[in-house]
């Protein structure tokens, strides 16, 4: 099996899994209970909260644990108190949990010009950035791996409108890249655990301001998110922090190596580079629909993503790739490759060979004839 869909979800880091086992076994009590068993969990949660705050270099503000980045994004957007007609800067085809909560609020969406290239983006930041009331944006675009210049965007926006609120979803970058909130100046930052070796069902939201709770009840997490905190999940996730602190550089070296292997060992027409991180990038397969090729790979136990790209089923809906700097000619021909902590060069080599084989084969059958 070759799993190159780590951006969708990845394997648990060994320490995380070990802690999960242990903590679920022994930390069964309720962290809100006042007895000893509850208190040790509560202390653990507070200690971990501080670890996370310092991991993302936050000097002020609060961090709460919740169930998913989707929940975090909803809560943050809910707390922005957006009014109809307000302007919000977003990315084209960003994650749905950043787009859907905006839909009912009747705000005007302003799209960041992802497809304008480096110079276009710089020009936009320097000269064209409009007044916006809020920014709701991913740190890394989940389909293309483009790394957003968050600090520059926030600076440009704040130059026009001092009070605009900024939410950044850092799920795809957390751990693998240094997240420095003090540099960003963001008001809200959401992070999901399971994209970087943590368990599913746990995420966190950093907030500079008070949140407007969506769940009412016992008032846990500073009254912002009622629910019994899940210490075993928080506990296990915290073990991912030292891993990334020490392995980050190695991971990037590895990713670069694997990406290069794929670049060199596939047909030049398959590999069309897009500026972004090395561990998450699109592959373009001219003439062949991405989902068909993905299913061929699937039958060889090679797993990649065509996720919310463009299944041929919905070919009538507009492909996101048009807005992401990929030639519209290729909008149905994209696969997303993403590496994780366990990906290795043998996998990359095999992958390159197999995809080239299927590509050639399929061209004969369904390519331009």
């Amino acid at each position, binding site marked *: 099996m070759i799993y190159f869909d780590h951006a969708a979800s990845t394997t648990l880091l060994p320490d995380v899994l070990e802690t999960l086992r242990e903590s679920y076994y022994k930390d069964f009590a309720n962290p809100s209970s006042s007895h000893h068993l509850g208190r040790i969990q509560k202390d653990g949660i507070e200690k971990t909260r501080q670890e996370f705050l310092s991991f993302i270099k936050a000097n002020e503000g609060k961090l709460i644990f919740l169930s998913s980045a989707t929940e975090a994004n909803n809560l943050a957007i809910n707390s922005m108190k957006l009014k109809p007609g307000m302007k919000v800067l977003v990315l084209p085809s960003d994650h749905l949990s950043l787009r859907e909560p905006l839909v009912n609020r009747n705000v005007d969406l302003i799209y960041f010009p992802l497809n304008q290239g480096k110079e276009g983006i710089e020009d936009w930041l320097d000269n064209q950035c409009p007044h916006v009331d809020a920014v709701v944006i991913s740190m890394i675009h989940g389909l293309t791996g483009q790394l957003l210049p968050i600090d520059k965007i926030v600076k440009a926006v704040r130059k026009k409108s001092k009070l605009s609120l900024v939410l950044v979803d850092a799920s795809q970058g957390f751990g693998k890249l240094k997240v420095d909130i003090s540099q960003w100046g963001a008001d809200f930052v959401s992070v999901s655990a399971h994209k970087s070796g943590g368990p599913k069902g746990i995420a966190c939201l950093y907030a500079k301001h008070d949140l407007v709770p969506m769940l009412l009840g016992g008032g846990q997490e500073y009254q912002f998110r009622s629910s019994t905190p899940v210490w075993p999940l928080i506990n296990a996730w915290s073990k991912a922090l030292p891993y990334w602190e020490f392995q980050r550089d190695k991971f990037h070296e590895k990713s670069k190596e694997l990406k290069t292997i794929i670049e060199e060992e596939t047909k030049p027409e398959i590999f069309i580079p897009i500026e972004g991180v090395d561990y998450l990038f699109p592959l373009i397969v001219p003439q062949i*629909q991405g*989902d*068909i090729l993905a*299913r*061929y790979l*699937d*039958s060889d136990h090679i797993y990649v993503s065509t996720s919310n790209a463009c*299944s*041929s*089923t*919905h070919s009538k809906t507009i492909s996101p790739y048009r807005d992401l700097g990929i030639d519209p000619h290729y909008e149905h021909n994209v696969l997303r490759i993403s590496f994780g902590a366990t990906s290795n060069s043998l996998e990359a080599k095999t992958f390159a060979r197999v995809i080239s084989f299927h590509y050639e*084969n399929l061209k*004969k*059958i*369904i390519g331009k*004839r």
Partner: protein
Amino acid sequence: MSIVETKNVSFTKANTLIVNVDELWLKSGNRNGYHKMLKAHIKELFRKLDLKSSSFCEQGQRVWIEFEKPLSHFFLESLKKIPGIHSFWPAIKVIPCLDKAIEVLLEQLKQCHPSGTFKVETQRINKLFPINSFEFSSKVGHHVLVEFPKLKVDVHNPDLVIWCKITKQAIYLSVEKLMGIGGLPVGSSGKALTLLSGGFDSPVASYLMARRGLAQHFIFFHAYPFVGMDVVEKIKSVASVLGTFQQHSKLYIVPFGKVQEDISKHCWDEYRTILFRLYMLKTCELLSHQKGFQALVTGDSLSQVSSQTLSNLSVLDKISEYSILRPLIGLNKRDILNLSQQIGIYSLSSVGHDDACALLAPKKPEVAAKWSYIAEFFAQNQFETQMRQSLKEAKVFGISLLGHLYEDNSSFADF
């Protein structure tokens, strides 16, 4: 005739069913066998719905069934789908006494809030009953008018018909006659394999053949990996509706992309579509040998698409070992869509999905296939191993007559 649900005036306490069997008079020689099949089908429905009949009796063209509990709406709707049933009355049984009949009738009518016009229709099967049917009807009608002064009599085109049937043992009262789909009991015409495609046509073809008493299993050729899994879900939902016209049906989902790939690589581009169809039929034959199907059913309609031209259909007929039944051959698309709507399958068929044929289709498909090329290609490329392999890898689902699909992978060891 529409089998889509209807809302009628109905008796809440109806616990007897009078079923009129369709077309049975045509078949006096086989009557017993036909009755048996229809009875088995109805009993299977009882079993699935956990209904108990206290008596089940056949009388000429009618079947009288009495139940311990009132009949449910769902049961009546399911009954409409059993081929061979012309119509049926859900009725209340009372002792053979006029006064009692009137008392029960009025009590039941009160719950239905009848309005508009009505008439009473009496059938005196027991000629010894003291008053004749005309008198019986007028007495009942009189009491109804007294109790519901707003109702008016209209013997020609009434809103409500009160049916009274007088037998030796009882009087049966009913206010609704429900129409079934008619035709012949399923299984009475044999057993066939129906090719489903994901479009509108083949489900309608299956329905029409079910009405003619043909028991069917269904086969779908899944062009994975050229298409995804969405289409399988669609086919399953379509088959689950078609299964409600059958008793014990099955759905075979056969992975066919590999075979299509092999065909595409070896044949002239223009012949892809017709050759795909040819090898689908051949695969059906292999399955039929094992399962004993006597014919194949397709949704072909003459000249609807290029693979359905007369010459292309003839080529397939020539090479097929089995009769290919094409009940839609002379229907227009609009007729087919109307039927699809009537059997409640239109909305399922209109769900979009990947289409492998479109994907692999040649730019200019052959409309007049040359027999010589087809015969030569087939002789050189039997693909039997691939076809057997695809059957071996097929997913099989059983379909209950309530439309529930369940996995059934017991039957494919020997391909």
